[in-house]
């Protein structure tokens, strides 16, 4: 027991600093992903090619290439073209772009799954398309989006471990640094696993609460 306390006292402060970076990337990335996902998801439905093609291109490029290579490219290659973003900004941006591409597909399919009759009914009542989308279709689509969005959020949180490649000391890298000092590989990685698990549980609880609220707002049972 005293061993465990001594172990935690030695390593926990550094891991908490690492956790801070992990959470910065997760929350920052989630905001970027939410904005881009909704924009690209709606964009792909647009009748104008000038909107739907770029949205399509974005989704395919970021879904179709390795997140690790994207990080490398943004961090090590872009400076040669005059764009040397700080490490944290690069991490948030790339993780957000990546998750956003997947989220765009979630948004697109959720909207497509709202019954066509809802659009027809809206038009019959004299509503314009924008109003139907924002007041009738989106609230229903939102309820369908949330469970897969929760999955993506946890996925994003775990992907943050990739950013150690670009000089950010997030949880995994902080664990590596502690490990280099004491070579206590097994307990240190066990601790890191527990921390990731705990964070994932908090994120999922948050998403579930949101789900309940959205379904309650629509007058449905969860």
């Amino acid at each position, binding site marked *: 027991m005293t061993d465990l306390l001594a172990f935690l006292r*030695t390593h926990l402060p*550094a891991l908490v600093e690492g956790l*801070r970076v992990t*959470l*910065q990337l997760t*929350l920052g990335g989630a905001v970027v992903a939410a904005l881009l996902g909704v924009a690209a998801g709606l964009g792909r439905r647009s009748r104008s090619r000038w909107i739907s093609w770029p949205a399509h291109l974005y989704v395919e490029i970021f879904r179709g290439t390795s997140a690790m290579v994207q990080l*490398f490219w943004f*961090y*090590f*290659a872009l*400076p*040669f073209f005059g764009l*040397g*973003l*700080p*490490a*944290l*900004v690069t991490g948030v941006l790339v993780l957000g772009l990546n998750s956003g591409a997947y989220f765009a597909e979630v948004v697109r399919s959720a909207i497509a799954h709202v019954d066509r009759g809802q659009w027809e009914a809206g038009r019959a009542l004299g509503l314009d398309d924008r109003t139907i989308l924002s007041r009738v279709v989106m609230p229903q689509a939102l309820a369908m989006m949330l469970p897969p969005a929760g999955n993506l959020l946890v996925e994003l949180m775990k992907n943050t471990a990739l950013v*150690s*490649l*670009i*000089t950010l*000391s997030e949880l995994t*890298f902080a664990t*590596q*640094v*502690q*490990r*280099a*000092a*004491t*070579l206590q*590989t097994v307990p240190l990685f066990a601790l890191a696993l527990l921390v990731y698990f705990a964070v994932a549980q908090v994120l999922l609880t948050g998403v579930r609460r949101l789900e309940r609220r959205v379904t309650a707002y629509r007058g449905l049972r969860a």
Partner: protein
Amino acid sequence: MPLLRRLTWALPAVLLLVWLWPRPGELERGAMTGGDALARIREAGVARIGFANEAPYAFIDTTTGRLTGEAPELARLVFRQLGVREIEGVLTEFGALIPALKAGRFDVIAAGMYITPPRCAEVRFSDPTYAIGEAFIVPAGNPLDLHGYEDLRDTPGATIGVVTGAIQLEYARAVGIPDDRIRIFPNAPSAVDGVSAGRASVYAGTDLTVNDLLRRTTAPLERAEPFDDLVIDGQVVKGYGAFAFRPDDTGFRDAFNQVLGATVGTDTHLALVEPFGFGRETLPGPITALELCQGSS
């Protein structure tokens, strides 16, 4: 009650955001290249140095949080004489040091990096600050009886563990160890754990890295003794570690190198690096970066 219930959520959320909000300096690490590097560093008062957390060359002392080791301590000394008060460490994996330097993520690599002709094509080195040999970490009792690179090559089924981007991969290939018997690990602790777990027969590292790792680990491992000197092209191979700069920063490198030349070998220098296992016997002698880049060692 709804107000109170909302507060129980809002307060932790606000505290979390305050904690997560980037602190001063955290966002100012954009890439910077071009112009007079030394003038820019002097103006900022801070030199950014890249390192890979490899003791005893450059590592974070986890008890104090201080960046220390042979290279950072020497860099501090030299930079002070150049009128730069502080150094700031940028931690990255060893294999990413050169790309990060070239992308302007820091101003100089201070990781005890060896001068090698392929690296000379990418970066500009200072003159060396130390010279050391090679060693193996093996399981206790050295079950495969391995005492050097040739030994390992001639032992069927023996595998060699090396770190990404580190010199030992080149040594292994130069000696003729086939690629399917080379295991590449992301960092030295992983390579050591790899030997413990039977993923590789040996970890091949520098003399001092091996000593340092064995001092820390509790696993049943040992240094392969005796160890045959590595001979490539008829010459005993020694590693010469130095600081590395961007190719364009010649003025900066020359100024740094001049102060460095007047420092290496002095009592101040020796006192500074002795805690890390370096000393008079690891001094590089009169050899220069230029000679090492041309491949004479």
